[in-house]
């Protein structure tokens, strides 16, 4: 058992060394797959920033990077709103081999929306690479081509993943214990 540095952290799921090693392995797969391609990594802000930069540095072929972000979910019953692009890509992806880089794929809602949006822009190919894949929570099936780790259905933080914007800067990935008393309704 790894020593936990903060009391709210239940346990460390993946150490910095484990993450670095796995990213190198996935980067090698990507380098081989896109050797003759025109690779562009598209990161989804903010969570994917840490993963994308580590991944990009480990990939051995030329590549471009770009970022986008989407709007936030509101809980107001009167105006639930709909997801939309909050910050769009800076450049066209037409004819490029786009690898959508995610920090985590769980329900698949976000990935599906982004795939639909990007598919309409004429890329040569479109695939997903995620740091974490939480398949037990999948509702919408989306094709995940590259994944570093599959994780159980626990709430995790670190290496870009936050809880209310905190903990992104942790170099490892840890499980944080949910506080059941704080739920907006009785379970």
């Amino acid at each position: 058992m790894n020593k936990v540095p903060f009391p709210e952290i239940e346990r460390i799921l993946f150490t910095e060394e484990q993450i670095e090693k796995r990213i190198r392995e996935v980067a090698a797969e990507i380098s081989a797959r896109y050797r003759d391609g025109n690779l562009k990594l598209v990161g989804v802000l903010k969570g994917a920033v840490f993963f994308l930069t580590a991944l990009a540095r480990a990939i051995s072929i030329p590549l471009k990077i770009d970022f986008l972000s989407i709007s936030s979910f509101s809980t107001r019953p009167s105006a639930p709103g709909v997801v939309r692009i909050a910050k769009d890509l800076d450049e066209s992806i037409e004819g490029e081999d786009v690898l959508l880089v995610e920090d985590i794929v769980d329900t698949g809602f976000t990935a599906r929306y982004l795939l639909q949006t990007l598919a309409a822009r004429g890329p040569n190919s479109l695939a997903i690479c995620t740091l974490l894949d939480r398949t037990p929570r999948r509702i919408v099936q989306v094709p995940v081509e590259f994944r570093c780790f599959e994780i159980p259905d626990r709430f995790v933080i670190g290496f870009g993943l936050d809880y209310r914007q905190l903990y992104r800067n942790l170099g490892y990935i840890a499980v944080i214990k949910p506080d059941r008393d704080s739920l907006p309704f009785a379970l």
Partner: protein
Amino acid sequence: MGLITITGAPGSRHEEAARLVAQRLGFELISELRLAALIEEEFGALASLPEKAWPELMTSVLARLATEHHLVVCAEGAEWLFEQFPGLLRVQVVAPEARRIGVLMIERRLERPTARELLRRLEAEARIRRRRRFGRSVQRAEGFDLVINTERLEPEQAAEIVAAAAAARAIAEQGYLSAAAEAHLQFQVRLKLSRYGIAPAGKLSFKPRRFSHPSEEIFANLLDFYRVAWEYEPRTFPLQWDRNGNVIESFTPDFYLPQFDLYVELTTMKQSLVTKKNRKIKLLRQIYPDVNIQVFYQKDFENLIFKYGLGRPPGPPARSSRPPASEPAAAERR
């Protein structure tokens, strides 16, 4: 009455646009699935109803609903009904074949050739169904008030255009269908239905959507946010029958997501009740092996809630300024 019909070819994303229009205008959304369930409730099993009676069946059900609600109807052939009513706005959503194939590829996880084949099959089936039900297979542009091409428009943008057209036509300012007008319509419709030997049970009641647990409302809002079409408790599955064939046990999943042909059940209750529900779900999977159902248990849902920032995080409160759980401050992206 205010009635907006939104129809389109497979893959044109007209269902998403319809749902967004209903959400934006506060109209009731009647999808193909919901309409079929209402027709079945009023007139009996769909398999026993002749296809030719479909316009009258639709008219009867929609007229009843229109006495209490403005409607967005996303069902084939709806544009051919109520043509004489002033509060009607007929919208057709189109998109080039390549775009629609792309939509099917993503939604159904298909390779392009398979998606193309599926699209052709769905289109052919729709043509046959329209001919059988309405006596015509082609939807001409002049039969609509508004035709929207979603090649370059997202469903949300299409919904904005429809909402603007509805405002220009003052659709929402129309009163609901009067009881007298409904009675007149029902008389005509039931006269025609009697030719097919169809006698309505007169039990149709339109239940406003009421969730039985706050978690369901949160989940529904999440689906709306991600533009995922959903139906609330649309189908009850019989699980056990007595010797006379009467249903003695059944199960009604909370949500149905038609785009993915997936039922979702939220289980946020005591462990003793979870065991009982698990038994029912196991039974459902045995009796209906083709039915896809995803169960969210308490822990799954807790974590989903925490992901969207609706709960308070663990740890000392001094480390962050946390809004109360009811505030709309959820961080969707992580």
